[in-house]
C-alpha cells in the first residue's frame, strides 16, 4: 500500500447541465412578444387611467390646494368646493353596506357550503351569481320604491328609541303624531341597504368558494371525533378561510365605495359632515361626479375629475389589498387565482 507522497487525486468535477437553446421558431418568438405586449397592456391601461385622471386634477389641485380635501361645500358658483363631506358620505354608505353585507354574506356562504341540503346547493350558487349580475340601477329602483317606505318606519323607530346615540339621531321629532316622513327618506342608511345588495353576492361568492376548498382530511378528522356540523365549521372551516373572508369583505367594500347608480337614484344630495345615518341627505363621490357632470363648466369638470382621481386611488388600494390578502392566506394558496 503506497504511503508517502500520495498522488493528489483530482477532485471529481461536478457535472454541469448543458445550456439548451429552446430553438423557438420565428412564429413563436413573434407570438411570445405579442402576447407579452397584450399582457402588459392591462398594466398600461390601469396606469393610463391614473395618469389621465391625475393630469386633469392638476388645475383643480393647484387652484384649491389642500382645501380641496378639507372643504365641505360643493358650490362651484362661489368657488367653494371641497370633497371632505363627500368622502365622509362615501365612507358612511360603504360602512352601512358592509355592516349589512358581511353577516348575511358569511352566513349564506356557510349555509351553502355546509348546511344546505346538497340537492339545492348548485341552485343557491346560481342565485348568488344572479344576484351579482343584476344591474345596479335596478337595485336602486327597488331600494327607492319598495325598500324605502319600509325602511323609513325602521329609521323612525330607531331614532325614537335610540336617538340619543348620535348615529341614530334625526333632526325632527320622531314622537310627533304626524311625523315628518321626508326627514327619513333618501338617507345614508337606505342607500347603504341598497348598496349592500351588490356587496352581498360579491363577498358571498368569494367566501363560499373558499369554504368549499377546506381540505377534506381536516374536515373528516373533526367529524370523526364526533363534531357536529357547526363544530366542523368552527374548528376547521373558519380558521382555514380567514383570508378569503377578509379578502371577500374588502372586495365588497371596494364595490360599495364605487357604486354609482343606486346612490344616484336614492340619495338626495346634501353636503356637510354629519354622522346622522338615518337622516335624509348625503352624497358620495361617484354620485357627485355623475350627478354634476351634465351641466358642469370646464373648471367644474376638472374638479369632478379630481374627485374621480381620488376615488380611483382609494378603490385601487382597497381592491389591490384584497387581492394580496386573499393570495397570501392559506385559503388563497388553494384557490384557482
Amino acid at each position, binding site marked *: 500500500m503506497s504511503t508517502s507522497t500520495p498522488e493528489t487525486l483530482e477532485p471529481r468535477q461536478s457535472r454541469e447541465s448543458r445550456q439548451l437553446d429552446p430553438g423557438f421558431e420565428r412564429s413563436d418568438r*413573434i407570438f411570445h412578444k405579442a402576447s407579452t405586449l397584450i399582457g402588459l397592456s392591462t398594466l398600461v391601461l390601469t396606469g393610463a387611467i391614473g395618469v389621465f385622471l391625475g393630469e386633469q386634477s392638476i388645475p383643480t389641485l393647484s387652484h384649491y390646494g389642500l382645501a380641496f380635501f378639507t372643504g365641505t361645500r360643493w358650490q362651484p358658483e362661489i368657488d367653494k368646493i371641497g370633497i371632505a363631506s363627500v368622502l365622509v358620505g362615501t365612507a358612511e354608505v360603504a360602512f352601512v353596506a358592509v355592516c349589512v353585507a358581511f353577516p348575511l354574506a358569511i352566513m349564506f356562504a356557510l349555509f351553502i357550503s355546509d348546511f344546505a341540503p346538497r340537492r339545492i346547493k348548485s341552485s343557491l350558487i346560481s342565485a348568488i351569481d344572479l344576484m351579482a349580475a343584476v344591474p345596479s340601477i335596478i337595485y336602486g329602483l327597488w331600494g327607492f320604491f319598495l325598500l324605502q317606505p319600509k325602511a323609513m318606519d325602521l329609521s323612525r323607530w330607531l331614532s325614537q328609541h335610540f336617538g340619543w346615540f348620535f348615529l341614530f339621531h334625526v333632526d325632527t321629532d320622531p314622537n310627533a303624531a304626524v311625523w315628518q316622513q321626508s326627514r327619513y327618506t333618501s338617507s345614508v342608511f337606505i342607500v347603504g341597504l341598497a348598496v349592500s345588495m351588490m356587496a352581498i353576492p360579491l363577498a358571498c361568492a368569494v367566501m363560499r368558494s373558499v369554504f368549499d376548498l377546506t381540505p377534506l382530511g381536516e374536515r373528516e378528522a373533526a367529524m370523526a371525533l364526533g363534531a357536529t356540523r357547526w363544530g366542523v365549521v368552527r374548528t376547521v372551516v373558519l380558521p382555514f378561510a380567514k383570508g378569503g373572508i377578509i379578502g371577500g369583505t374588502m372586495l365588497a367594500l371596494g364595490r360599495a365605495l364605487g357604486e354609482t347608480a343606486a346612490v344616484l337614484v336614492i340619495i338626495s344630495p346634501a353636503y356637510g359632515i354629519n354622522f346622522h345615518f338615518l337622516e335624509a341627505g348625503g352624497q358620495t363621490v361617484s354620485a357627485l361626479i355623475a350627478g354634476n357632470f351634465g351641466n358642469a363648466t370646464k373648471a367644474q369638470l376638472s374638479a369632478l375629475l379630481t374627485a374621480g382621481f381620488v376615488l380611483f386611488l382609494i378603490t385601487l388600494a382597497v381592491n389591490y389589498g384584497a387581492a394580496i390578502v386573499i393570495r397570501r392566506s392559506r385559503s388563497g394558496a388553494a384557490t384557482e387565482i
Partner: protein
Amino acid sequence: MTTLHERGDAVAASEAPVAPVARTPRKIRRLTPDDWTSLAGALLASFALVTLIYEHLLNLSGVLGYLVCWYAAFVVVYATVLRMANSRKVVIERLVTVTLYLAAFIVVGALLSTVVYTFAQGFHAYIHLNFFTHDMTGVSPTAPLSQGGILHAIVGTVIEVAIAVIASVPLGIGTAVYLSEVGGRWSQSVRTVVEAMTALPEILAGLFVYVVLIVYVGMPKTGLAVSLAMAVTMVPIIARASEVALRVVPNGLREASEALGATHWRTVYKVVLPSARAGLATATILAVARGIGETAVPLITSGASSFLNFNPVTNPMNSLPLYIYTSYTTHEPSAVTRAFGAASVLLAMVVVLFVVTRFLSRDKGAPR
C-alpha cells in the same frame, strides 16, 4: 375459533342454494321525530307568545318588529325545549342551523323581491307592443303608455355591447393567454392588476374614456364612446375568467401537441383555445352581463337621445340603463312605469345571458 365462518359454511352446505336476494339500503334519518316536534312546537309557541304580547304589552307596530320579536322568542323557546333532551353542543348546532336558514331566506328573498317587483312594476309598460317597436321621438314623458317605446334604447344597448365585445374579447383573451400559456417576469403583476381592475368602479371607466376621447381627441358623445368605456370594464373580467378556463385544460393535451412537433403558437391556437371554448364563451357572457347594466358609463359618455339611431359614430345613442335613469328622474308616473318596463327588459336580458352561461358550463359536465 371461526365459529361464524364455520357455521356459515355448515348452513350453506346444508341448505339448497338460494337465489341471492337483492340488497336494499337502509334509510338513515338524521333528525328524529323528537327533533321535528321540538321545532314545530317552538315555532307555534313563540308565534302565540309574540302575537299576544306584541301589540298590547310592548305597544309596537310594524311587520319587521313583529318578525324580529318572533325570532327572538323562537330562539329562547327552542333552546329551552332542546336543552331538556339534548346536550349543549346539539342545542348550539340546531340554533346555528336555524339562524343560517333565516339568513338564506333573507338573501334569497331580497333577490326574489327585486326581480318580481321590477317585472311587476313594468308590467303596464311592456304589455304594450309599441313599447318594443317605437322610440320616444315626439313622445313626452307624460304621454300614456300606449305611445312611444324603448326600441332606441334596446338597439343602442345591443349595438354598444356588440362593439364593446369586439374591442374587449381579443384583449381579454390575449391577456389570459399571456398569463396562462406564455408567462414571464410580469405575469404576477399583470395578474394582480387584472384582479384589482375587475372591481374598478364603472364611473371611472367612463371618466377615463371621456378624458381621452372626448376631451383630448375631441370625439363627440356617441355610442362608440360608451362601447369603449364598457370595454375598459369588460377586459379584466374576460381576462380573469378566461385564464381560469385555460388553466383547466389538461396539461397532457399541450404535451401531446408539442410532442408532435407543433410550435407553441399552434398548440395554443389549435389545441388549448378550442378545448377551453365553453369557458371562454362563459367569460365573455359574464362580462357582457356586467357591461349592459352599467349606468354611470353612458351617463358620462353619452347623451340621452330619444330617437332611434343605428350609427355609433354620429349622434348620441340611448341605452337601456341610461333610459331607465333619465325616465326615473322626471318622476312622472308614466315615465317611471316606462323606466320599470325598460328595467324589466334589461333584467330579462341579464337572466337570459345567465341561463346561457349555466347551460354552457353544465354541458362540459363540470359541476362547480
